[in-house]
Structure formats: C-alpha cells, structure tokens
C-alpha cells in the first residue's frame, strides 16, 4: 500500500512534466530534450526566490513558473523557430546543445548542490498502514488539477482546437489560416508553464539540483511512450503507471535494478502496444 501510494504521488509529477512535453511535441514536432531544464530552472528559481528574496512560497513558485515560461519561449524563438524547416536531426542536436549550455550556466550560478524550497506543507496522514506526507498529497492534487485544466484548454478553447489541428496536420492547418508562429508560442508557453509548476511544487517536497533536467526528460519520455503520444489527459495515467512501476520495482528488486526494470517494462509496452497503452487513435480524439 505504501509503495503504491508513493508511486502515485511521484507519478503525477512525471505526468505533469510529460503533459507539457506532449503539448510541445504534438504541436511543434520538436524533440524538446531541454524540457527537463524548464523544470530545473523553475525549481531553482523558486528556491532562490524563497531563500534569497524571502518571498512567500506561492510568490516564489510564480517566479519559478515565469522563469520556466521565459526559458521555453527563448528556446522556441531563438533556436527552434529559425530551424523549423531544417531536418529533425538539427533540432534534436540543438535541443541537446541547449541542455548542456543550460546545465553549465545553472551550475555556474547555483552550483550542483541539491536543495529544497523551505515553507512547503508539513505533517502526514494515514491510509491503512501507509503514512503519506501532506506535501505529497498536495503535489499530486496540484499536478492532477493542472493536467485537467490543460486538457480542458486543449479541448474546449479556440487556441486548443488550433493546436490540435496543427498536431493532426500542420501543413493543412496553416493553409486553413491557423497562425503557426502564434501556436508555437502558445504551445511552448503552456508546455513550459506545466514544467514550471512541476518544478516549483516538486522543489518544496524533494531536493532539486541543477543536474536533474535530463533525468526528468527521460522520465517524461517514458510516460509518453506508456500513454501514447497526442493526448494531454492520458499522460496522467501513464505517469501514475510509471510511478507505481518504479515504486514496486524499487521494493521488489535491489536498488541497482530499479531503473532497468522501468525500462524493461517500457520495452515490453513498446513491443506489445507500439502506440502506447491507450492507442494513438483514441489519444488524438
């Protein structure tokens, strides 16, 4: 029970990060490996704002999210947009380059010492024989709520419908008069904001460091593979599934095999269900 609930809490954060990546990749078709850096930037900025500027946690989180959005938009228009007609390899290489540059700069600014944003929720509650920290419950609730709101944004607003149209067929969408540049901006802003929320809330519960970006990106990619690309809502289940698999693997197998088991599970899903557990057709609905 404890492991299951641990996995659910961790999984919702993975899902929130993956939701941002799905949004960006779905609309823009950019392999945005620097998405995890948005999480890192937000977490570090939140911690810095709270500990150095002495802002309350909520304001600190706002600073973190703003920084994350700014970072995403910067990469969008300084790196990816000018290369939009280049081969995907160029974009892939650029996004990996952005990871290295961002991490180097972050280490120079903040060092690589892990830190936790003070002022998070304290205390725990019990479910059966499991003890769940309130901070985890808050983390999971915020993640689920933000994913839900984003799913609504995508399905119920004009901007969301435009993004879905671009995800389905960018060329046709452009011919139909959908503003591509504006939708790139919206996708990067919203996707990076999701990463920002994840980073800032995560930093109040778990330690964040300047080197966490790539790990986070890989976790998000696994979630997307499990859930199937294309749907923001389905990543929630993909995230929870990853969290639970991770927690159970960590309990059943010795520490050294935890990551291997997660990737083994992912490979099994890829072979058995190449479009993810929820299938591409459903995911694009």
């Amino acid at each position, binding site marked *: 029970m*404890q*492991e299951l609930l*641990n996995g659910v809490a961790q999984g919702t954060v993975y899902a929130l990060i993956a939701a941002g990546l799905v949004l960006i990749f779905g609309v823009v078709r950019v392999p945005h490996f620097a998405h995890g850096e948005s999480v890192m930037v937000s977490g570090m900025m939140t911690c810095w704002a709270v500990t150095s500027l002495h802002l309350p946690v909520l304001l600190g989180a706002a600073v973190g999210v703003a920084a994350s959005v700014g970072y995403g938009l910067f990469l969008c228009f300084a790196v990816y947009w000018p290369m939009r007609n280049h081969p995907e390899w160029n974009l892939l290489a650029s996004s990996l380059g952005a990871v290295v540059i961002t991490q*180097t700069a972050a280490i120079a600014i903040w060092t690589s*010492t892990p*830190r936790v944003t003070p002022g998070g929720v304290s205390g725990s509650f019990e479910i059966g024989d499991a003890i769940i920290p309130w901070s985890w419950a808050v983390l999971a609730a915020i993640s689920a709520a933000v994913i839900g709101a984003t799913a609504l944004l995508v399905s119920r607003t004009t901007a969301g419908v435009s993004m879905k149209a671009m995800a389905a067929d960018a060329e046709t969408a452009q011919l139909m008069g959908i503003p591509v540049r504006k939708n790139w901006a919206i996708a990067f802003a919203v996707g990076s904001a999701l990463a920002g929320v994840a980073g800032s809330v995560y930093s109040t519960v*778990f330690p964040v*460091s300047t080197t966490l970006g790539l790990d986070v990106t890989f976790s998000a990619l696994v979630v997307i593979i499990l859930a199937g690309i294309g749907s923001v809502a389905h990543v929630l289940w993909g995230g929870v599934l990853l969290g639970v698999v991770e927690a159970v693997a960590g309990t059943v197998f*010795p*520490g050294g095999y935890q990551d291997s088991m997660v990737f083994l599970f992912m490979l099994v899903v890829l072979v058995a269900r190449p479009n993810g557990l929820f299938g591409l057709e459903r995911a694009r609905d």
Partner: protein
Amino acid sequence: MRVRSIAWVAGAALAVTGLAACGEDSGSSDGSELVIGEVAELTGAAEAVGGPQHNAIKLAVDEINAAGGIRIGDKKVRIKLRTEDTKSDPTVGVTAVQKLLTKDGVHYLVGSLSGAVASAYLPVIKDRKDIIDIVVGAANPGLNENISVYRPRADAFQSVDAEVTLALETAGELGTDNIAVLSDKKLQSNAVAVPKIVDAIKAAGKTVVGPVDFEMGATQFSSQIAALKRAGNKVALFQGYGTDLMTFVKQARAQGYDGTVVAASGATADQVKQADVSADALKNVFDIGTAFPADLVALKLNAEAAQKFADAYEKEFGAPPGYTSASAYGGVHILAAALEKAGTTTDYAKVREALDDLTVADVPELAEKVVPQEGDRIFKDHQAYFSLVLRAWDGAAWTTVKAIG
C-alpha cells in the same frame, strides 16, 4: 529575426564560456616554481564537499607562497597549482589526471575526493615512481597500497568499528534484533566497507536489513524507507554523503520511520539548511567521522592549530571549512614539509622517504588530530590515522558529543 536569433544564442554561449573561463588558472611554471596538480570535484555529485576541499588546498598553497615558497636547499620554490575539475565523474577524472601528467608535466598530485574517480585514475599512476599523489578525500580502503599514493585522511575502515559499536549499543538499548544498512552504491568505499559492517553486525548476533542500496544524489528514498518499515527496523547505519543523509532523514520522518540513524557522512549545517530538515527530524541522528576544526576546539584536541585554520578559512571564503577541508589543508603542508625535508623536488624516491619518515611535529600546520604511528610518524603504510568524533544536531549546528579513539 534569424540574425537576431543567432545573436541571442551566440551571446548566451559566449556568456557561459566566459563564466567558465573565469575559473581557469593561466600561466606556467618556470625554474622557481613547482607545478602541483589538483584533482578536484568542483562540480557534480560530490561538489558540496569538493568545493570546500579545493578552497583549503588553495588556502594552504597561498600561505606557503606568501611565506616565499617551499625551502629546497638554499632557495625557495613557489607552488603553482593546476586544478582540474573531474565533475565527480571517473571518466572525466582519468582525462584530468592524464592532462595534468602529460600536458602540465606534474609529478605531484593533491586532492581526489571521489573514491570512484580515484580508483579510475589509479591505474594511470600506480606504477609511476615519479608521481606522488596526496589523497585528501577519497576513503576507499586499500588506495594507499600503491607506491605513489599517500593518504593523510581517514579511510572508510577507520569509522566502521565506531559506527557498528554505536549501532549495536543502540539496538541493545532498544531491544531490537535487526540493524539496517543503507549503502550508496556509487560510493566506491562502500564496496569494501559495507561487507565489513554486515559481517560485524552478524558476528554480534544481530540480523541485517539490507544492504539497502541507494544512489548518490537520490531525490526519493521511499523504497528504502518502506523496506526498513516492513522489517520493523529501529536502528539504521547510513553509508553515504551528508546531502543524501539529509534527504533520507527528512523523508523517513515524514513517512513514519522514527529509528535511530548512525552515519559517517560528514554532514554540515549548510546541508541541513539546503535540505530544509527540521530539528525534530534530526533527533536520534548521529554522525561519526574525522573531527571538524570546531570539534577539535570543543574537545581541546590540537585546538590552537584547528582554530587558526578555521579562522583563516572563514576569513578567506566566508564560510566554515567543509568535511575534508582540514585534511586537504594538512595534505598540502605535509607535501611541502616532505619536500623541504628531502631537499629536492625531482628525486621522487627521496621525497617518498621523507614522507614515510615525516613526524607529526614536522608539520605544525596540521589542523586535525593525527594519531601518531610508530616513532611519532604521520603515516603507516602511506595511511594516516585520526581521532574520530560523534556528532549530533542541536537545532542550530552539529555539536560534538564525544571523541572516539
């Protein structure tokens, strides 16, 4: 737009490159300088300890140079420190050492915090009779069994007995039969220290929970905590760095694990603050290790030299020394004293002889409490031994409970 974009990217890249370049130490050695290579963990997982270790090395070098340098015969030789950051990565560490040996032509190395890095580069230097490596951080037992390596720093075995004794005593007081062993699987010294710990616990008639592995820099200890709770564990030995100990303790207390934790992590007040761990969570957490200067002052052991070093360090860097800082500071002074005693910088056999014969009294700058070996020597088989201390958190700082050994 395109040109502007390129300008943005180029600007950002230049800014980062510029920042990196600021840290580089330019210049080269001439006849009056001795180039010493520093293998440093300035970034990466071991940075929190590696930074203060580097500071202490720099402080010792600056002091020696301020006094005119190392006296070799009738002339003084200034030290030129060449620092290479291993990024706490063994592969990078090997490249760093190769660069120091070939490009910079160094014959003397100081530093090395990460045991994994030290083990990785050891094959490069172990048969080199013209290399002397003063290891001031890495704790892997056996590292000193190489002709080129001297270690003025406690190895992992030196704290193992004290850790196990405290854990057994606590388990006896609590009437519990099992002791958990949490082990950082990336920490090279654990490969030999953990089996020794497990054997000692079993020999005392207790059962062992684990070893429960974790990875340096872990953000989540839920699986490990669940394993301890399932076993009804009340006493855990934690074999890892201070940053990880803080993360573990915070999460363990939040998830209802209230057992006693015995560690040899060198945790600092700054690490407690960075991890936002409450004083309540740190109740029944004990850290055993080589004494910090503040411990020595409190225990009145080599207090004057310890205080002098701590004051100089704080004045220079605006923070108290880190876990391995005093060893690093002492290591540079030990090397300088050996070179002076040998009267040469190029006869490496003679310098090794001087290191072997060096006594505690030969190095008044030592800011730690070295346990003298036969003939008051610092080293026995290239390894120095130290008084250890038991520390506990008092709500504002790690305070000395007692000296061990």
